[in-house]
């Protein structure tokens, strides 16, 4: 069972309460007041300026200023404009959007309404990964109820504003979390990313101006409208305001979700909130934000989880999916799992990615079997450096970064496999 977050703040405060997912329960807890305020008292530009000024960063991984993204939508156009809510949540180690949909779907719909008002969008497509059958059902039920009670449709809350929301289910492809891969998939095609420019604000869903934001990003918006940007900035760091939902998994006593301010140290997340590694074992390494983010060794966990600090350690907070590995873990096996995933999920469009992800995986598996050479380790680093930044989308970067991180901090694990001719970590997890 999906448990509600162990540590809550404004975003997940009411997630223990089933009624919060219903229109009446949500309204009883102050819901839809922010959308009403935005639509009746604020111009679209005022909403965009407020969200921009709050410093809300996209919570899907890239961390781009959400208000700034909204401001890219063309104002003078006869074309229909669309919002797209990215609920693909395909980055391994991430499971926060799922709870935002299951426990707070009205909060998400309110965020969509405000985004739609700000960008002049007539319709939102919520793209939910195919595996999330239950969250998709919850979302559809919440949408149906919102229509029934006048919070969606031709006359939202009696304001005359019109907005529709449609759920599109994906069908099992990691790349559809990339915004232009998602747009292709939304159009009923293979989810192969598009070249940018043109960016989605010019040429998005079905060729129309579109803005794509993550589920969590939209879910923060009602709170910003309601309480203002100064209130929002009391949480988090100067450059990374607000809270986020960290999902902790792997070798910890209390895996789960924790809503904490950005800038909370990785150490506090792992040892205080997730209660450290079971049975008195030590931490070996932590992946801070989904498998595509470079790993940090145990000695570097004092870093605040905000991109301006993470970048100094050559990593990023990504999706906030924290994966903890204990001292018995073989980092070459970790590399096997991650590189196989990227090899399997490459969309195949760009040669560097299609071939490079396969080569990296083969070399890593060879090293794990004990059949690798020291030269293999160098070639691995060389391939990772050459696929990075060389392709249409960031998938190749996402495949290269974890390999580079593992080589940066755990090169000796790779070397020991070569020297011994076998895996030196018999207690590590089974491959």
């Amino acid at each position, binding site marked *: 069972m999906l448990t509600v977050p162990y540590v809550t703040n404004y975003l997940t405060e009411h997630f223990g309460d089933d009624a919060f997912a219903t229109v009446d329960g949500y309204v009883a807890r102050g819901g839809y007041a922010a959308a009403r305020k935005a639509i009746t008292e604020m111009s679209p530009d005022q909403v965009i300026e407020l969200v921009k000024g709050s410093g809300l960063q996209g919570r899907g991984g890239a961390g781009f200023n959400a208000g700034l993204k909204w401001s890219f939508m063309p104002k003078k156009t006869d074309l229909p404009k669309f919002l797209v809510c990215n609920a693909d949540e395909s980055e391994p180690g991430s499971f926060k959007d799922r709870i935002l949909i299951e426990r707070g779907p009205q909060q998400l719909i309110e965020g969509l309404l405000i985004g739609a008002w700000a960008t002049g969008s007539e319709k939102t497509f919520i793209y939910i990964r195919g595996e999330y059958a239950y969250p998709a059902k919850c979302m559809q039920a919440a949408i149906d109820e919102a229509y029934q009670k006048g919070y969606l449709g031709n006359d939202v809350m009696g304001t005359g504003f019109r907005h529709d929301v449609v759920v599109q289910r994906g069908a099992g*492809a990691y790349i559809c979390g990339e915004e232009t891969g998602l747009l292709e998939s939304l159009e009923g095609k293979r989810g192969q990313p598009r070249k940018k420019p043109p960016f989605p604000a010019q040429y998005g869903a079905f060729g129309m101006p579109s803005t794509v934001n993550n589920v969590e990003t939209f879910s923060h918006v009602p709170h910003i409208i309601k309480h203002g940007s100064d209130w929002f900035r009391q949480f988090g760091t100067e450059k990374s305001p607000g809270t986020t939902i960290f999902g902790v998994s*792997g070798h910890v006593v209390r895996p789960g979700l924790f809503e904490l301010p950005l800038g909370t140290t990785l150490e506090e997340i792992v040892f205080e909130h997730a209660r450290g590694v079971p049975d008195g074992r030590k931490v070996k390494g932590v992946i801070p934000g989904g498998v595509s983010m470079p790993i940090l060794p145990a000695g570097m966990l004092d870093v605040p989880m905000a991109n301006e600090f993470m970048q100094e350690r050559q990593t990023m907070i990504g999706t906030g999916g924290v994966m903890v590995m204990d001292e018995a873990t073989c980092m070459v096996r970790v590399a096997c799992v991650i590189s196989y995933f990227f090899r399997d999920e490459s969309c195949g469009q760009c040669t560097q990615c299609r071939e490079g992800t396969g080569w990296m995986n083969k070399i890593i598996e060879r090293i794990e079997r004990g059949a690798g050479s020291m030269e293999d380790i160098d070639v691995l680093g060389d391939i990772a450096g050459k696929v990075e930044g060389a392709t249409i989308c960031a998938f190749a970067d996402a495949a290269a970064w974890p390999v580079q991180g593992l080589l940066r901090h755990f090169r000796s694990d790779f070397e020991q496999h070569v020297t011994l001719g076998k895996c030196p970590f018999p207690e590590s997890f089974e491959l």
Partner: protein
Amino acid sequence: MVSKGSEPSQGGGPLAEDRPARISSETRAKIEAEMENFPVKRGALLNALYLVQSETGYISQELAKELAGIFDIQPADVLGVVSFYNMFYEKPQGRHHVHVCTNLSCSLRGGRTLLRELEEHLGVGPGETTSDGRVTLGHEECLGACAYAPMMRVDETYHEDLDLEQAKKILDELE
């Protein structure tokens, strides 16, 4: 050990006898209703494939041709979409799909051990279907249940925080 399960699973197995091989008129009506949600009708193709597959079990060449007709596109376009996504099948499948998550968070907590033991329990290899056509067992790459590992998806239902005995029992109870 390393190469185990490292080829993408293909599924395969006998087709359940009661599956229709054509798109029913009800499904066709549902597909046409879905088209209304999108500015162009092709937007409804993924939904259409789900609808058809829930009736037929997989998307055959014939069904792809039929769908192509409904959407005014080429059969190759439909098959291109089917082959791109893990959740659409080009070949007959077991009556139930069981997917054990083997990505990192689950592997760290025994996901691959669970998959191997379930393969032994059912007597199938990676991605294979039991000889009675009951279950197709495969791995999956992260189902977004990382804190509740190990876990598996049975058709559309998640089973989380599993141990081997619980997982076997769930599989044994499938019809």
